[in-house]
């Protein structure tokens, strides 16, 4: 079974390690509750 989450464009900054593994076609073993990403709005505030 599988769950897919689709976020609106530019709404989330997914954690870099997850993106990097996926770019290598490598799945990442995760558990419920681990951080997935941060809202882009928040990210922009932090960058400022």
């Amino acid at each position: 079974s599988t769950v897919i989450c689709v976020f609106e464009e530019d709404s989330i900054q997914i954690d870099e390690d997850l993106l990097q593994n996926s770019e290598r076609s490598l799945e990442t073993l995760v558990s419920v509750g681990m951080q997935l990403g941060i809202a882009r709005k928040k990210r922009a505030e932090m960058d400022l």
Partner: protein
Amino acid sequence: MGNGGSRRGDSSSSSDSESKSSRVSRLRQKLHDYRQSHFHRRRRSSGLSSHLNSLSSADDFAGIALLTLIRAEMKFKDKWLACVSLGEQTFRTEISDNTDKPVWNSEKKLLLERNGPHVARISIFETNRVSKNNFIGYCEIDLLEFLDLDSDSDAHVFDLLDPSSNDMVVGNISLSCAIEDPFETEKNFARRILSVVDYDEDGTLSFSEFSDLVNGFGNQVLATKKEELFKAADTNGDGVVSMDELAALLAIQQEKEPLINSCPVCGEILQVADKLNTMIHLTLCFDEGTGNQVMTGGFLTDKQASYGWIFKLSEWAHYSSYNVGLKSGSSASHILVFDRRKKRLVEELIDGKIVLSMRALYQSNIGLRLMDKGAKEILQSISERQGKKMNSVESAEDIPKFLEFFKDQINMGEVKYPLQHFKTFNEFFIRELKPGARPIACMEHDDVAISAADSRLMAFKSAEDSLRLWIKGRKFSVHGLLGKDICPNAFVNGSIVIFRLAPQDYHRFHLPVSGVIEKFVDIPGSLYTVNPIAVNSKYCNVFTENKRTVSIISTTHFGKVAFIAIGATMVGSMTFLKKEGDFVKKGDEFGYFSFGG
């Protein structure tokens, strides 16, 4: 530190702790000294501006650790081998004699980086079968904590735990770990590369030997330039380059105009700006296959390293970074996944027969045409029958066998109810966990999204990326995934995260974000497998053809989030614990998958 816990090494004499600073603090001091000397050297050689680079690379460096697996004490006699896994690397020892006290004395240099993996897993296998080894015990050791132990002795003893029951000790292993002085690393490196081209073994390099060395590092400098470099290196003017002169040249030249562009052992292109890590890379590469009882490397996981005769075929297997995950074609017999918590690769084996049948069905046009001619109905029927069977009282008898099969992957200690609580297999399959078993990241911050399931995850910035890198079904689209009852506009090029649950996983899914549930839409469909073999098939469109339920969650920080639960072969039943209009908090239980159609 790790799970071994029972540090029984000779650490008793700690009376003069003042004089006996920890090895890590000594290492830190060495690194400090190293940085200071490097800084002054750089000021002399290339001006102040370049030293920042050096400091940054030195800051990233923790050191080379020499790990030695000395011996073990097991509870029965056998021929034993041990594997060490750290990050994406696994090494194995030789196989011991038939004994209950195997001695290996095998050592391996491992690179410890500040933010890199530092928990080593030691796995012990018995090897009395021809092609299959049995995993008997393991321990996990945080090497940075190990190095921090104050002790007169470098060797420590750790309990080996039974993979099927974390409380049971099946033996112990004695090992040591030491950090190499960065100065020593630099010196050893110069000595090692000198020996590679020092054909007459006189401990110095003539011009022709020096010239070969420069070529070996992938540097295409002109002959006149080589002469110039050689003269610069030969500071005492005796016509040859000594080890010290070579070390000095490499240190200075690598900053000005790097000599070392690629590793002569593995061919990897080296980062020009990162001299320190270049030196470490080459040191570790040159170290392969030499030294005292050095462990064999080139493996990705401990399972791979423990294979019997098969290991001979894969001993030097090399995986480029782009095919490390799913193996395609005839090699599709296992899937490698990266364990985020432990920062290392683990191997998910698929039964060979299943692989063949999945490939036949999902990776060929003919297979899919067969699927159209009735196989879909068969999959539906199998799933419904499986549902009935798994809801029967008799099915509870399968639970112990299931636990045995996945003995190192299911932790019963975190399950809410004891085993006898489950009256059917399906009840066990949808087991709940104890409160707090899954900590929620940044619980008070709704602008941080979390993982929705214990799973193997793929994440892509856009649908386009997901198609380029993972989902190969020709008909996949976000529109198709969401179905015709949901307006797809906001999601069309949004980020996609795929959580794949394996049979042994905790099968409840949780909310990744906080918000209000706007709606649920059930979409009927097939029950193809969601295994990567099918997802990676251009002929199969599992995500857009399988039975699924789409829910839309309206959030403050992420806008709308589409949450799609997709049924699969045999596990086609989805139950939701929330309803439309509910306010939900990230981490809340959202529903579960169970056996059935």
